[in-house]
């Protein structure tokens, strides 16, 4: 069994190495006519860019993606600099009409994004030409290896039950060198995905056939991310099924997050795209779906006929009606640990790291400041955006619409949710984003704390303060602090993953939806003492 396990690990690492290695393969160049078509499609009017790009990429040299990217970015920079200089010159000469003319030649967009678009057309090589085979060597080997690594646990872990043996003795799960390597890999992955997508263009070739099948178009970096996301969740979901096979709540919950990720977040939007509809994730609620009210999205929905209007109405109803009502009845867990994609990844890929959330009082203070700030930030951004959208202005209460959207997307959307939220799993735990950053979680949390039937019931005086619940709380709640006082746990951050209840050796904790009355039950003395003493002390 152990041999199978370690063989699996080796196969997985080979798959991962090939996947990573594909980045460095292929050669990138365009023919003159391809370039001309591209420039025409994009409607570039600048002669400089035409000339520069021609020099840069119409070549017989075999350029790798890094060389290609650097040349393309330089071409755009040279072109833009050229016109910036002209603008400055005409400005100095006060030649306003000439100055104004130059702006049409400027090319907007992030350099790596411009480079990505061109690279997607320019690539050739083994990966692109053998997508199926390379898929097997990367995704295929990765999946097979990971499953071989995971499946023997059915036997190796022994009888069903809580199996946390060795978590704090192993490098991977105890912030050792393996954890740091994983962190570096994940962070690098997110940096490439968000900020240097052109470097990962080879990955998109691997998935072009699948993408074409699903939505009729080639794969983008976001398709790669979505596909990878689903694959990882499925494989790590298998791990969850084995690890918690004695616990039906975990089994049902894991199935639910897998279903919503694969069907709602991945398949439905892809199929909608293939039907010429706007691809929409019907479960992704604003303000987690922070660009729902961005101009481009509103325009796209308004121009998509009935389905667009439906999505618009659904999105609004989801956030202001469905979400709070469901939280009232079931707690925020219905979303955060049963439906949400971020939660889904945290509960599958992130499960081995759940113990790393910080339980200190200071971390709780930071959490409340940070998450509510992000909620306010997202709301301000949306108000500004909507005001500008309907009034046609560029700013509101002194805030520029474009600036605040860009800032939010960069700081919150990319850095917080992605790079830190997922990249830092192995060190800070699997719910950093959900706990400190997610504006939707903040909103759900407020409802859960003040108006909900959900609580974690503490079973009388049975707590022995062992600390398993607090240790394995991914949201950094000091569960024990309540349980050992006989107090129910009603916390805005609780996502109802149910692990505290699962790891409790004395059957003290139960997630329940019950009457609101008595949900919050501060007690001074626990059950077990005679009734007089309890009454006496609780009266005070």
């Amino acid at each position, binding site marked *: 069994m152990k041999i199978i396990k370690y063989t699996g690990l080796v196969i997985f690492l080979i798959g991962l190495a090939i996947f990573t290695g594909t980045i460095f393969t292929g050669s990138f160049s365009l023919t003159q006519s391809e370039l001309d078509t591209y420039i025409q499609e994009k409607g570039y009017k600048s002669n400089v860019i035409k000339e520069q790009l021609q020099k840069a990429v119409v070549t017989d040299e075999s350029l790798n993606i890094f060389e290609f990217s650097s040349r393309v970015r330089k071409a755009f920079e040279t072109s833009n600099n050229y016109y910036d200089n002209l603008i400055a010159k005409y400005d100095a000469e006060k030649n306003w009409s000439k100055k104004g003319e130059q702006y049409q030649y400027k090319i907007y967009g992030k350099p790596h994004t411009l480079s990505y678009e061109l690279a997607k057309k320019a690539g050739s090589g083994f990966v692109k030409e053998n997508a199926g085979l390379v898929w097997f060597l990367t995704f295929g080997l990765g999946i097979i290896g990971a499953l071989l690594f995971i499946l023997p646990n059915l036997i190796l872990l022994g009888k069903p039950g*809580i199996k946390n043996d060795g978590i704090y003795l192993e490098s991977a799960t105890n912030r050792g060198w393996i954890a740091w390597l994983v962190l570096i890999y994940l962070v690098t992955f997110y940096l490439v995905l968000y900020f240097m997508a052109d470097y990962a263009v080879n990955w998109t070739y691997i998935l072009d056939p699948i993408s074409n099948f699903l939505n009729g178009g080639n794969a983008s970096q976001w398709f790669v991310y979505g596909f990878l996301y689903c694959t990882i969740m499925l494989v790590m979901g298998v791990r969850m099924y084995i690890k918690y096979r004695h616990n039906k709540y975990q089994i049902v919950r894991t199935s639910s997050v897998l279903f919503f990720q694969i069907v709602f977040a991945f398949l439905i939007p892809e199929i909608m795209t293939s039907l010429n509809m706007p691809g929409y994730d019907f479960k992704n609620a604003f303000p987690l779906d922070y660009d729902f009210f961005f101009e481009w999205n509103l325009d796209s929905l308004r121009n998509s006929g009935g389905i667009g209007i439906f999505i618009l109405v659904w999105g609004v109803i989801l956030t202001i009606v469905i979400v709070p009502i469901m939280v009232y009845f079931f707690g925020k867990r219905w979303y955060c640990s049963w439906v949400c994609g971020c939660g889904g990844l945290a509960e599958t890929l992130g499960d081995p790291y759940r113990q790393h959330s910080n339980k200190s009082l200071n971390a709780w203070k930071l959490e409340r400041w940070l998450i509510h700030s992000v909620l306010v930030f997202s709301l301000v951004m949306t108000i500004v955006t909507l005001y500008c959208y309907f009034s046609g202005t560029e700013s509101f209460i002194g805030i520029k619409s474009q600036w605040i959207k860009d800032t939010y997307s960069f700081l919150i959307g990319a850095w917080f949710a992605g790079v830190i939220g997922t990249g830092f799993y192995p060190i800070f735990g699997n719910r950093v984003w959900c706990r400190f950053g997610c504006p939707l979680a903040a909103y759900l949390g407020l409802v859960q704390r003040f108006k909900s039937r959900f609580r974690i019931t503490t079973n009388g005086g049975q707590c022995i303060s062992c600390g398993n619940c607090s240790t394995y709380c991914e949201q950094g709640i000091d569960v024990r602090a309540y349980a050992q006082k006989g107090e129910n746990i009603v916390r805005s951050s609780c996502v109802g993953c149910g692990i505290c209840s699962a790891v409790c050796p004395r059957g003290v904790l*139960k997630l329940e939806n019950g009457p609101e009355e008595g949900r919050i039950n501060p007690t001074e003395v626990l059950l077990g003492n005679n009734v007089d003493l309890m009454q006496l002390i609780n009266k005070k």
Partner: protein
Amino acid sequence: MKHIVIIGNGISGVTAARHIRKNSDHKITIVSAETKYFFSRTALMYIYMGHMKFEHTQPYENWFWDKNKINLKEGYVGKINTDDKVLKFSNGEHLSYDKLIIATGSKPNKFGWPGQDLDGVMGMYHKQDLEKLEKYAPDNKTCKRAIIVGGGLIGIELAEMLRSRNISVTFLVRESSFWNGVLPAQESEMINEHIKEHHIDLRLSTNLKEIKADENGRVKSVIIEETEEEIFCDVVGLTAGVSPNIDFIKNSQIETKRGVLVNRFLETNISDVYAIGDCAEQQEAIGQRRNVEAVWYTGRMMGETLAQTICGNKTEYKPGHWFNSAKFLDIEYQTYGWVFSERNKKENEQYFQWRHPKDYKCITISFDKDSHQFLGINTFGIRMRHEIFDRWLTQNQSVEYVLEYLADANFDPEFYKLHEAEIVAKFNKENNTNIQLKKKSWKRIFSKV
């Protein structure tokens, strides 16, 4: 403002300190030789098993003590001078007190076995025991086999710990079936099966004769009393129960028997000296309880009660209905009220028992043969609500009532398979009754007595 000194920073002492702080501004000092900060003793096993680190077993962050003005003093009390109200530490320091609370807990029993103090022989009680285990049994190369002597709760935990590192374990149990002095046969036998399933070499009706040393004074093997068999091993765990940790009190004027003798107000024979927790011995038994109760929960309750007395509200220690819990490897156990084993049960006590055909789940309900009053329940693999059973016991409900409303008591996680219907059906069949199981009702569950 009085100076309250508490010897021992376990659950009893710390609970007393916390409640004294809540209700007064007395100066409080907690003395401990084991660790500076309070930790949960019951969680030590999880550190060795890698579920947690030591810091996770500490229920309060380190700033808590300063913030609540509870002084922590590390040191070993050698002598108590009750005339001058002074503690003398083994390093010669002194500390005077106005009121003294003795909460020194237990120590593992040793029954005078030859070799019981050799290197590699240890109990599993103190933090230092854990450190020793880590030294002598870090892995299955250093420790090829461990022998555990004594089949109680600590013994089975130690076995589980060692098995988590794939160390071979031989488990010597004096009784003919695991813990059958406490558990009814059905449950005891189920645990026997489960122990063996975890590849633990369970030896029932087996006593230790002696522990043998190698040339370096390290444990080499044990000899079995009954068969003279020699079993080679690298570690011996002595887990044959615990007794009050009060040797340092024996030469003081404080009256002791097995533990420090206290009355119902937890007062000793010396005024302003109290004892709580494992080390306290009630002069007269309370209900069916033992005079010395080495249980987490009772320690906590005594701490809560004594804090009231110290803060001027003299309060009798009146533990409510008995309850307890444990975990035997993968099987959770809870008990409410009194269920005695066949060996110890009285004439009027009758069992109703149910066991799941495949899974490790079973219950034993004890009730009065004549009045049918519900006396207690043991539940294995099914979680039950403490508050509900506590209420039923207070209300002297009948066994039929308990079964009728059993669904209210279930505390298993959502989506778990429920067994109340099977349980009730079995009772009906055995007793020719026609109890109809009521559906779970939030209203009943959350109604106050």
